């Protein structure tokens, strides 16, 4: 029997509960994040979302999936990377759920666990962006593109060639990458922030075993 298939009454499968712990740790960073359990599935979030048409799973269903115990489907969804961070859902939610923040928690979990939606490499763009920032302290487009295409598929780069040439013709590309003055200081800040951003050691509550399953979400 595979570890995924072990079922016990009142418990999630071990893999699911492991993902859930990772996610709840991320949610724990959000003030008021525990409100996620109070969802009344009214759909205000989906109705308010300006990009819900492009989502494979509407925001309301993200929370429904979490309830249903399907973390994997949740993390693999395109929707969490589609969110435009307009916070419309969050301001209107009648259950005071921090939906946009929860979606960020999902993104962080996905990056931590390396569970991504196939063929929707927004996370690699985010990674590349951070890398450029870390190296130069500012955004350098040609390098960003190099990092990004190395991650998401080298051959794709050629489809961008016409646009690149056009931009080069109009001198819209900066070839030389210059660093900011105090790049070391910025890197220190970023490292410190990384520590904060990813699960905060001293704030993570030890989840009791029974609090991990359905009981945790009522």
């Amino acid at each position: 029997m595979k570890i995924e298939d072990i079922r016990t009454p009142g418990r999630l499968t071990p893999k699911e509960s492991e993902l859930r712990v990772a996610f709840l740790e991320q949610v724990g960073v959000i003030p008021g994040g525990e409100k996620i359990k109070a969802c009344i599935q009214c759909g205000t979030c989906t109705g308010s979302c300006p990009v819900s048409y492009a989502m494979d799973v509407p925001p309301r269903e993200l929370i429904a999936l979490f309830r249903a115990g399907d973390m994997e489907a949740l993390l693999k969804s395109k929707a969490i990377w589609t969110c435009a961070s307009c916070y419309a859902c969050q301001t209107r939610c009648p259950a005071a759920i921090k939906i946009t923040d929860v979606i960020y928690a999902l993104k962080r979990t996905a990056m931590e666990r390396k569970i991504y939606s196939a063929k929707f490499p927004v996370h690699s763009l985010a990674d590349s962006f951070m890398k450029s920032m870390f190296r130069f302290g500012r955004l350098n487009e040609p390098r960003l593109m190099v990092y990004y295409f190395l991650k998401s598929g080298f051959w794709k780069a050629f489809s961008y060639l016409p646009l690149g040439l056009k931009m080069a013709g109009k001198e819209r590309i900066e070839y030389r990458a210059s660093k900011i003055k105090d790049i070391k200081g910025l890197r220190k800040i970023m490292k410190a922030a990384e520590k904060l951003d990813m699960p905060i050691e001293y704030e993570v509550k030890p989840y009791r075993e029974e609090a991990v399953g359905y009981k945790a979400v009522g």
Partner: protein
Amino acid sequence: MEKHEKIGVYICHCGVNISQTVRVEEVAEALKSNPEVVVSTTYKFMCSDPGQKMVEEDIQKHGLTRVVVAACSPHMHELTFRNACERAGLNRYLFQMANIREHCAWVHSDVDAATAKAKALVNAAARRVAWQEPLQPMKAKINPGTLVVGGGIAGIQAALEIAESGNKVYLVEKESTIGGQMAKFDKTFPTLDCSACILTPKMVSVSHRKNIETLTLSEVEEVSGFVGNFKVRIRKKARYVHDNCTSCGECAKVCPVRVPNWFDEFTQQRTAIHKAFPQAVPNTYVIDRQDKPPCTEACPIRQEAAGYVALIKQGRFHEAAQLIHKRNPLPIVCGRVCYHPCETECNRGYVDEPVAIQHLKRFALDWEMKHNGRFEPPKIDKKRKEKVAVIGSGPAGLTCAHDLALNGYPVTVFEQHSVLGGMLAVGIPEYRLPKKLLEMEIEYMKGMGIKFKTNSKLGADFTLESLLKQDFKAIFVAIGAHKGVKLYVPGEDLEGVISGVDFLRRVNLGISREIGRHVAVIGGGNTAIDAARTALRCGAEKVAILYRRTRQEMPASPEEIADAEAEGVHIAYLTAPTEISGKNGKVTGLRCTRMKLGEPDSSGRRRPIPIPNSEHELEFDTVIAAISQSPDIACLNGKSTVHLDSTKWDTLQVNPETLQTNVPNIFSAGDVVLGPSTIIASMGGGRRAAESIDKFLNNQPLKDYKTHVVRPEIFRGESFRPHSYAPTYKETPRAPRTHAPKLDPQQRAAIFAEVELGYSEEQAMREAARCLSCGVCVECHECERVCEPKAVDYSMPDEIREVEVGQVIIATGYDIFDASKMFQYGYGKLKNVYSSLEFERMLSSTGPTGGKVLLENGKEPRAVGIIHCVGSRDANFNRYCSRVCCMYAMKFAHLVKDRTSAEVYQFYIDMRAYGKGYEEFYSRILEEGVNVIRGKVAEVVEKKTPDGDKFLNIRCEDTLIGKFREIPLDMVILCNGLQPNKTADKIARQFGLSRSPDGFFLERHPKLDPFSTVSEGIYLAGCAQGPKDIPDTVSQASAAAGRALAMISKAEVDLDPIRAWIDERYCSGCRICNNLCPYHAIDFIEEKKISLVNDALCKGCGTCVAACPAGAITGKGFSDRQIYAELEGILAG
């Protein structure tokens, strides 16, 4: 210190409520260490029958002298165990309860800590109970009267139930009618009964019951007392209509004011005198007077300016003229030359420009004269014997004479000149006030029976003494200020120098119109302008006004200045004469100096300072000095033995309030008191003097003046509203003042014809429409005029009622959630988005559309959306479910389907159809084809079709298919949640009630006592306690009434004897406590020289206990020893 009592301690498990957090056995064991504790045990349910039996048996078996039960809150079961003790023969006050459920088990999760706390609490109770003393409960009579606060269906039902038993009920309602929110509904769910059909019979039977006293427009102001003996002070706001109103509705037909009706949720207009709806109870009209219009308040004679402006707005010019004439003795004069303080105070002036009240007044009177000829003097029925003399026929004298004549006094007016009118006749030029109009006013006065004696000068032809000898019982001195003030510069005696008043008098009396070629007028007041313009008309070639300050400081009215300049008068500012130069005794010129402005002086204007070396010479042949006037009081005291006090400015000294001089029957007002002042101020003085003289001759005290009210300060920021239905200043649409036409300046400068031409009818109506109707009622007295039974009474005061009742039922109901807070739904911004109550009114046959479902443009909607849970089940607003919205939404859906062919969409989160017949109603509307969509609406926006047709677009997720949907609609109805009435906070403070976090009143027990409060004798009914539908409200109201009736039939109530008690041995008779007691419950006994507490009045507050320097006062049940023991118990753990 040991007491050697035998104490029994019982710890309750309360099922597992207590025992799962507190180790009860351990607590019981710990208590055994106290040597006085004989029994210490635990039991699963102490409050059960076996539990109580256990206590009773132990008392008998072990001879317990004290009992402690540690269980739930004393609110729940203190009474239970006290009764148990009493049954076993132990005094009920030798029992003490420790609360280890609410205070330990329910609020802690740490078992060790909770157990330790429980031990401390029980130990404290055990130590305390040892010192408790047997007490006897006190009895108090129960007043059989009941106060019901709130006249909605809950209040009505409760009042009727109690009245049925024959007991007295006071039903207090803050609006003008009972009926509450239910009266606004059209149909009720799920049976679709007509709300009016089932409610109005109940309302009528309330009014028919002799033992129900309905107090509408009333609010509770103060509550004191305790169960069975409440004293309540109620303020009953004036209705301004007496009970003999027959509700014929004639008054509403003539009322010129239109404001939105609160009853129709502001969707329909009503008049200021109104009835909320045709079936209102009490069925009498009411005048909505929110504030006094500032124009009326500002007028010294309290002319109802807003009233005639409103009448002119409607084109009722005759009524307007009548109204003006009723209050104003010199209306034509005021319409032309009044200083109009009303316009200065006009609220409209803070929006753009003040309403042209004076022009409107003139228009109304001109119209009346043109169409109906002269005014008929009123018939005066009253006849008085006391003769009154009025000296001076100026505005003050005429007003006083007019008012006294109206009261029936024979009045004689003495005038020194040959013409009547005082300054009006001799001071104001013809082109501003044509003499024939003034004569009309005088004719009117003569018609009233006032006698006039011209050419009789005080001091020369008669004296005050001679008047008194002629049996005049009172004299009014209004001789004005006719003496020009001198310039006090060299050369003033030269020929060609004349004072302004003298010049004007000369011209007005037709003595001479002679004037030089180059005229200088010195001064900046209205007299200076009048003199300059008159000089022009008399043929002067060049007229210049010299003023020592700038135009801003000029006291003359700005319009007059502009008119003078237009006619060619040159005004030299910052110029002052230093010398009048002359040759051969005649004026040849003026030596002037230039001035600059310095620091403000006592009048608030900047003081002019001469600029050195700026002297220059100007050529003139005539100089008119019009700097000021002063009264000529030499004539008063010359040969007379009657002496009147004067001030250093040569004015008369009077009491500023009563206008009485130092001689009791001589009064004075006008310029002789004020110095040079305005017509209207003098008229105000004359009116008040008339009131004083009337009071004096009737031997009444001279106070409480109707004509003399202190004007309140009004804050007028951008958010100010002239009345509660008006838009704020910021939102008021701007509209410029309509300017009255004038004669051409070139043409008019040579003739004495009237300059101002007055409004046309259309201009007047346009200008009057700018009035903001401040304070709703504009006091036009039209309703008073048409009311046949004479029920309208503007002078009705607010009434304060003190009632004594035994119990109170709070039925203050709810308000609907303000949907404009959820701006995504566009309520208040988008057209065709309605709140639930607005839609109820639309459905009602007495509503704005007469029961038809129509859009703003009058068309029938093609699709209607109904949004549930607006402001309910929402963490941003109210967490709770409002219970009724799903059902009334379905009612709406049904009625829309029934009355239109529109497609209906319902957007719900969870459909809650929980009552009898409710689920069936849900099935019914589903079968009727209503589209039911599960999903909360995200937003409502307005959109346009390609042909410009506007519609509302709803965006939401249909959660059952997991799809985002956009639905085009014509109308959106919001299902506003219910929230506590906005008065709930005030009521809670007045009655000392608690409220749950949602704001509704807290019931004693949510399951077993949902209609009582923790305060004995105060009960709850209806939505004041929580959202509920009509059947539940009625049931709860009846239950509350039942509880009140049970108290009434009990007739007596046991009160805890927790009172202050004075130990006579220690009382030193210092009487400190006597004055400190807030209830005046402590009396000093003279014989014994000690103080004693009156138990009936004492509330046991303990103030005296703390204050007594001898320590002679003890709170029964709260003695020092008991409290120390309790503290020791807690600290010992």
